[in-house]
């Protein structure tokens, strides 16, 4: 019972808050949704205990969804360790964000709508992680996409928010196209889209081939790559990442929940969930690994020079997602999910902390207009430190355990892509530490750069916002230490059960515990270097950043403009599409189709109608004449056809 309740309480909350928001007022909507989430989070912890720690995975059948010929889909909830972990992540972070939003959004005129969207998103995310077949996964997948669209464009009066929402939606469509093709391909290959059926049949299909785009390919590789395109879109990997920074137009709690902790990790979850398929497609795994590593590096470089506090964290998210993917790419799914787990806490913490800063600074997001406020908002300052330390992977914070594990697994994979990922990861780690402390120093230290009015107004956030921060900070502090053994340590096999499948020959995750000492120490070392560098440039020699930027202005602009991805896409896709669309509209539709079709026909009809009306002269003898002619005509026709 609690299994079903945990999933559907957010939906109930969303429905009530969404439909009856007018009557409930802000307070009622908040009580309904936050209460639902609190219960849901509690249940999720119980579920994690039963499913993962006691080792009792289960599947709850709700009803038969679609039965059409040989195509049968049930609606059922799958609870194994992977699901349970995601459940806890989603509901706990979502719960924290719900409460935080009570404070953050209290000025907003449409609070019930916001909470309805948040809860709706949570429901779809839970649908996604409890999916027992591809279609349900797709349902949740599209559902979170919808909720994300609604929330990014929550302030729909802002044109930039609308543009960002549309961009997120469209870029995700590209990924979803691949995903949908992948699902169709799975049905074509297996005749079923049920996870268990597909996974059980996979070893037998290891050598199967299929026709795709006119060639014959290794079937599983094609399927896995198609599915991975979907994951790339949702998880903002290199090439399909452009929507994520823009998505920061949404309210900050949304960024914390959707664009840091949960939805963007759906791609990682999907790869882990489909590990029984990916394991038999080594090339696809290599692609996952390379894409992940490249994203980790790319996003970190861009993060170095951004000035918007939320965008820095957004690129950091993008980069960390890259870590998770390359872990999966070397068959260390457990490490990837472990990083997902810890990352959810400290990244949500960072976002909510940033939200708290923005709240304190009267909605200012540009770090160049901040500075020197650490003494005014000490609690937030402390929280941001904890989040940054965890992100940089300094010892005994959550990120330390998971990030090191990811890097060690990459190294231990002992393959070309593994080493590529390892070194990319190390370089990204330097930069991660650098931009994190750049953010801290620019935001909290140095001379205040905001105007006096804003500075006078700087204040600590209310308790309803800081308590969620503290809860998440506990996660950022201890999640790694507590989870290490179960996720990737000695209790690993027992913990995961059958939720994750790794071929016996892929031993990266086991070997990761036996890598040379320098590999284990290097991430910490580079983290410290990054922090030191940031301290040197932003505290000791504050004139340095401008000098460096001036000296390497080409590189600076390249990074500042995010490697010109947006400009490139604009030139390659947006403008041509716009041009073609406008052409079709003006010339094709307006001139050709309207001219010949509706308009042409209409004017023809009008013309004819005018003539027909003129026949009606009003003279009786005209009428009588028409009748006689009619009869004569009919008789003639008759005789003609007869004879």
């Amino acid at each position, binding site marked *: 019972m609690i299994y079903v309740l945990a999933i559907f309480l957010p939906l109930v909350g969303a429905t009530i808050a969404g439909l009856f928001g007018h009557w409930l007022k802000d307070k009622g909507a908040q009580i309904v949704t936050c209460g639902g989430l609190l219960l849901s989070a509690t249940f999720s912890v119980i579920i994690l205990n039963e499913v993962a720690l006691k080792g009792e995975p289960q599947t709850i059948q709700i009803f038969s969804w679609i039965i059409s010929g040989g195509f049968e889909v049930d609606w059922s909830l799958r609870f194994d360790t992977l699901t349970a972990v995601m459940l806890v992540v989603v509901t706990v972070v979502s719960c924290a964000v719900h409460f935080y939003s009570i404070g953050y959004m209290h000025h907003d005129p449409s609070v019930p709508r916001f909470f309805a969207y948040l809860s709706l998103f949570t429901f779809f995310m839970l649908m996604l992680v409890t999916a027992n077949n591809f279609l349900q996964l797709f349902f949740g997948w599209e559902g979170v996409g919808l909720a994300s669209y609604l929330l990014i464009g929550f302030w729909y009066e802002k044109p930039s928010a609308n543009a960002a929402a549309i961009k997120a939606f469209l870029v995700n469509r590209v990924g979803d196209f691949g995903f949908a093709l992948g699902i169709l391909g799975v049905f074509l290959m297996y005749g079923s889209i049920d996870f268990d059926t597909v996974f059980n049949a996979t070893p037998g299909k290891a050598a199967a081939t299929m026709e795709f785009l006119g060639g014959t390919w290794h079937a599983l590789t094609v399927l896995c790559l198609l599915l991975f395109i979907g994951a790339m879109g949702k998880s903002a990997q290199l090439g399909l990442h452009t929507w994520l920074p823009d998505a920061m137009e949404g309210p900050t709690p949304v960024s914390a929940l959707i664009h840091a902790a949960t939805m963007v990790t759906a791609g990682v979850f999907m790869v882990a969930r489909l590990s029984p398929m990916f394991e038999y497609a080594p090339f696809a795994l290599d692609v996952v690994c390379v894409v992940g590593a490249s994203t980790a590096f790319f996003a970190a470089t861009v993060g170095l020079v951004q000035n918007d506090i939320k965008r820095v964290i957004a690129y950091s998210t993008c980069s960390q997602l890259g870590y998770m993917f390359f872990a999966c790419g070397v068959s260390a799914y457990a490490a990837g999910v472990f990083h997902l787990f810890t990352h959810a806490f400290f990244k949500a913490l960072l976002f909510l902390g940033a939200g708290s800063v923005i709240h304190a600074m009267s909605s200012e997001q540009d770090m160049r207009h901040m500075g020197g406020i650490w003494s005014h908002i000490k609690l937030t300052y402390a929280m941001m430190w904890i989040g940054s330390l965890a992100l940089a992977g300094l010892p005994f914070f959550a990120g330390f355990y998971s990030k090191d594990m990811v890097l060690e697994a990459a190294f231990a994979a002992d393959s070309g892509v593994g080493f590529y990922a390892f070194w990319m990861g190390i370089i990204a780690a330097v930069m991660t530490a650098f931009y994190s402390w750049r953010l801290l120093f620019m935001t909290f230290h140095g001379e205040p750069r905001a105007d006096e009015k804003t500075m006078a107004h700087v204040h600590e956030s209310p308790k309803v916002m800081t308590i969620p921060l503290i809860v998440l900070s506990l996660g950022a502090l201890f999640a790694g230490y507590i989870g290490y053994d179960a996720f990737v340590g000695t209790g690993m096999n027992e913990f995961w059960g059958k939720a994750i499948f790794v071929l016996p020959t892929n031993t990266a995750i086991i070997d990761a515990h036996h890598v040379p000492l320098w590999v284990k120490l290097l991430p910490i070392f580079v983290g410290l270097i990054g922090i030191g560098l940031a301290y040197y440039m932003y505290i000791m020699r504050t004139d340095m950043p401008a000098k460096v930027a001036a000296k390497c202005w080409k590189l600076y602009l390249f990074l500042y403009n995010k490697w010109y991805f947006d400009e490139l896409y604009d030139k390659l896709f947006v403008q041509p599409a716009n041009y073609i669309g406008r052409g079709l509209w003006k010339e094709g539709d307006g001139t050709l189709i309207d001219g010949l079709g509706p308009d042409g026909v209409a004017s023809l009809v009008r013309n004819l109608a005018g003539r027909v009306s003129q026949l009606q002269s009003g003279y009786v003898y005209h009428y009588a004449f028409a*009748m006689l002619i009619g009869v004569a005509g009919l008789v003639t026709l008759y005789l003609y056809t007869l004879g």
Partner: protein
Amino acid sequence: MISLNELMPALPEIVLACMGMILLMLGVFRGDGSTRSVSWIAVLVLIVVGVVLSSVQNGRMTAFGGQFVVDDFAHFMKWLIIIGSSFAILMSINFNERESIARFEYPVLILFATLGMFMMVSANDLISLYIGLELQSLSLYVVAAFRRDSLKSSEAGLKYFVLGALSSGMLLYGCSLVYGFAGTTSFEGLATLFKSLGGTGPSVGLVVGLVFLIAGLAFKVSAVPFHMWTPDVYEGAPTPVTAFFAVAPKIAAIALFIRVLVGPFGVLIADWQQVIVLISIASMVLGALAAIWQDNIKRLLAYSSIGNIGYALIGLATGTEAGIRGILVYMTIYLAMNVGTFCCVLAMRRTGRMVENIADLAGLARNQPLMALALAILMFSMAGIPPLAGFFGKLYIFLAAIEAGLYTLAIIGVLASVVGAFYYLRIIKIMYFDEPAEVFDRSMGREVRAILVGTTLFVTFFIVRPDIIVEGAGTAARMLLAG
């Protein structure tokens, strides 16, 4: 000596005839002051006739030596006529008083016209066909010119009379040709004769006679090219009369059309089918096109009815059971839509005078939202937009045409209804989006309001239980073809 039992099938007609004459006497002796009571009694009579009709009805029966036939088909059609006639009387009561043309002859004439229509529907012989037709027509000529002082009304009556006489002449000529070449006027006799012809086919004279017969009937249903009286008469006649013209005589004439063509001449379908197809197409196209330029709503409705008859004739052209059923359903829905629409036209009255221009409806949605809603529903239905009744009417007709392989006809029908949708939707557009014109007088009258509400509800909720009417129509069509 005819036994009373033999007359039983004609009991409704006998009741109607007697009551009509009694009411006439009543009116003559009591004067015009009795108009209101005569009208109400006439409606009552019609209801009583309906009850008698249903209680007498029992399979297929004939009377008057086979000249008169009663079956499910006649039963169904007569009920439609009763409804149409009683609505016409109810709608006239207030109107005629306001226009100071409240004369007791009006309900009496309607009763006699109804009697004529009953005879038409039950005709089983060319002679009884003609008698029924003339009784009906003579009554209609008079009511068309009922507003004697109005030039337009007199002109309408006169035009109708002259052209009607011409069409009667054609009909009679056709009948005499048929009789001359077949040697009998009885439908059963004709049917037997044609069946015995076998492969040789009918003689030319017979076919020419049939064409003349069709021409005469086409005039009554106002099918192209025998339609030209319709707009003038619709416009000139008082509105309740127009409403009556639009429904009851059309239903009776189409019933007669069906009875003649699929009855005795059913075997010759190959010969008459193309004629019907031709006038059906011409009616649909003209109905759709000519209405576009109309400013006067009554003229517009005249063209609309020409178009609608075109659709009904599609069903006749198939000559199948499904086609006949389609016509019956179509005519039922057509009755409801037209009566409802004319109720709205009746309510178009400004400072005591009737206005009839479509532009006068401008902004009605803001002045009288309920009436605008009702009219909008009726117009949507006329345009054939689901889920309203008008859609189903067309659906059954087109389905029958497709089943019978008349694809061209069905396609032209659909295209014509697309063009036709333009002027129906234009009325809605004018009501809802144009700047409001002056307010109408709020004097619809209880009877009219009740009829409007009733027909609108029927049109809206037909989809809930279409089977009631469709099954009744199905039984009637089956019986007609079996007999």
